[in-house]
């Protein structure tokens, strides 16, 4: 029983982390329909930036905020210089964002060396509580809390403001949105920046979780983020949340009960979900 609780808690924490990795992509790919293969790069920059800032400032909060700022700054440059000319064209997007991905992850090596770096958990969040044989790792609980907060914040913004609607409308018919007097360009830039910032936040939060960061981490986790966005249903924040939790839980339960399958776990999950519900968990039909 305790074993199951452990699996549940940790699966949930992983899920929440995966959600944090994916939430930026939910905005950029799900909502804005930009096939961003560079997402992993943003994410890795968040991780490196966070670790570096934590080392320099000694404040974890500053590190997280700094990572988000780094992510947003990169997002701003990326959107203005390479994404803007290729909105609406997935083929071109694949190429430019792959280019960005290469540049971003190589730049990491230039700035921080090609070696893996250690990432520390701030003292306040390190250690764990033990209840019986259930081990509650503080940092993971922290990640769950942050995940929920980000979820609520993004949901709130999308529900309370027109931004989500405008972006969706802009993807469907940019001209018409402009003809309604909306400066769609600014809004796209903004949303892209927020998506990039969230990606960086995800990276910065992942770093202490696994204890070590490395320049290839970007591509590795980007695919996971894509899986989450797609099985959640494009652009649905709830969908991403649910999908991420599914990924987390299935990961930990498979590894425990069906270890032979765990290598294929995420792919199987995606196959099953998509064959049963072709537009993802929360995706609109058609």
């Amino acid at each position, binding site marked *: 029983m305790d074993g199951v609780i452990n*699996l549940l808690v940790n699966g949930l924490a992983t899920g929440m982390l995966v959600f944090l990795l994916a939430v930026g992509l939910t905005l950029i790919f799900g909502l804005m329909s930009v096939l961003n293969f560079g997402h992993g790069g943003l994410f890795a920059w968040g991780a490196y930036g966070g670790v570096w800032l934590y080392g320099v400032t000694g404040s974890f909060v500053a590190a997280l905020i700094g990572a988000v700022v780094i992510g947003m700054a990169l997002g701003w440059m990326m959107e203005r210089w390479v994404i803007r000319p290729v909105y609406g064209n997935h083929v071109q997007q694949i190429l430019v964002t792959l280019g960005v991905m290469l540049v971003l992850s190589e730049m990491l090596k230039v700035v921080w060396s090609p070696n893996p770096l250690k990432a520390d958990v701030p003292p306040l969040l390190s250690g764990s509580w033990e209840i019986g044989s259930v081990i509650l790792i503080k940092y993971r609980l922290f990640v769950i809390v942050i995940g929920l907060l980000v979820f609520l914040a993004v949901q709130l913004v999308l529900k309370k403001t027109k931004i989500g609607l405008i972006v969706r409308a802009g993807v469907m018919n940019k001209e018409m949105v402009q003809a309604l007097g909306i400066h769609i360009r600014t809004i796209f830039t903004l949303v892209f920046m927020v998506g990039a910032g969230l990606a960086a936040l995800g990276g910065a939060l992942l770093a202490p979780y696994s204890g070590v960061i490395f320049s*290839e981490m970007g591509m590795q986790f980007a695919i996971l983020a894509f899986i989450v966005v797609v099985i959640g249903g494009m652009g649905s924040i709830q969908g991403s949340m649910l999908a991420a939790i599914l990924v987390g839980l299935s990961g930990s339960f498979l590894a*425990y009960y069906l270890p032979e399958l765990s290598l294929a776990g995420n792919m199987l999950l995606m196959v099953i979900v998509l064959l049963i519900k072709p537009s993802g968990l929360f995706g609109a039909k058609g």
Partner: protein
Amino acid sequence: GNSGSEAKTETKTETKTETNQTPTATKESEPAKELPPVKIGVLASLTGALESYGKQTVRGFELGIDYATEGTKTVAGRKIEFIVEDTETKPDVAVKKATKLLETDKVDFLVGSSSSGDTLAVLPLAEEYKKVMVVEPAVADSITGAMWNKYIFRTARNSSQDAVAGAAAIAKQGVKIATFAPDGAFGRDGIAAFKEAATKLGATIVEEQYADATATDFTANIQKIVKAKPDYLFVVWAGANTPWKQLQDMKVQEQGIKLSTGAPDIAALKTMQELTGMEGFSVYYHTLPTNDVNKWLVEEHKKRFNGEVPDLFTPGGMSAAISIVEAVKKTNGDTNADPLISAMEGMSFNTPKGTMTFRKEDHQALQSLYAVKLEKQDGVDYPVPVLIRELSPEETAPPIRTKP
């Protein structure tokens, strides 16, 4: 981290006159005009995930040539030139680069490479072109096993040697061991070999766990390991996405389970603070071997690379270079494969890790490995491998697995 390029630019200027040449070398350079140089192609990952390994090999190789020729870069009257190529850790690139080395540069030896896949892909070329290849630091058993051909020598240790060393460090009669490794050829082979060695020493394997090397969460595996209540947890791991943090989070050590693994390079040790106190094995750490070659290596390395010490695979690169120079010495400058092979089979040579010997049957270099404990040391920002005992080449000799 620009040192790699230094190494490479230097190789390019090799043919020009060297400033630090001794007068004898200058004299010797006269017959060198008649004799063609000995050319060596070094394959290494200079970009990609294994970049730092590749760079260690290259540095070590360069130092090794200098050491073995006493700075003359000349052997048996022939100049030594070496050309470094980046395999990018992609088998097809490795083959392309190897072909280029063999065809265009007409190298006499191949050395490399950082990944087992790249190396395996190049093995048939060595056979095709009848050139000796010294494998360094690729670790897969099959290189000197099922896929081996007679042109292949290996100065690197193989998976089985690692495993035997790992077992020797912890396995005893009655010890219960759990294992944890990435689910893949590397992890599974490593554990299989370890299991064989450990059971031979009387230990029992109570749990084997394999996980996706790229997974975010290893909790489930760790839970199972804890449940099996082993005395030791032996971990075989490669890649940066390591489980150490999670093993600590899950309080594995607090529950009386001792961790054991192979000590990695310094950059990775820095991320292993949690493992202070662990007992395991090491392929190399610069304070472990006590011999003159290593002393020279540490000093020379510090001198050339502003104070850095040699790392995990630096001595390997050096050993490869030394073995080649020694072999050419033995053949008196003949670089044809057959005489070289006969010269190298059974050849012993001094390396930073003591004496290595190319075993006749599979050309694997038998070598010392080290049982170590990770300790915290003042002024060092990572847990330092401290020698418990040196595992002799005979003790770590792996089984012979070449095809009959």
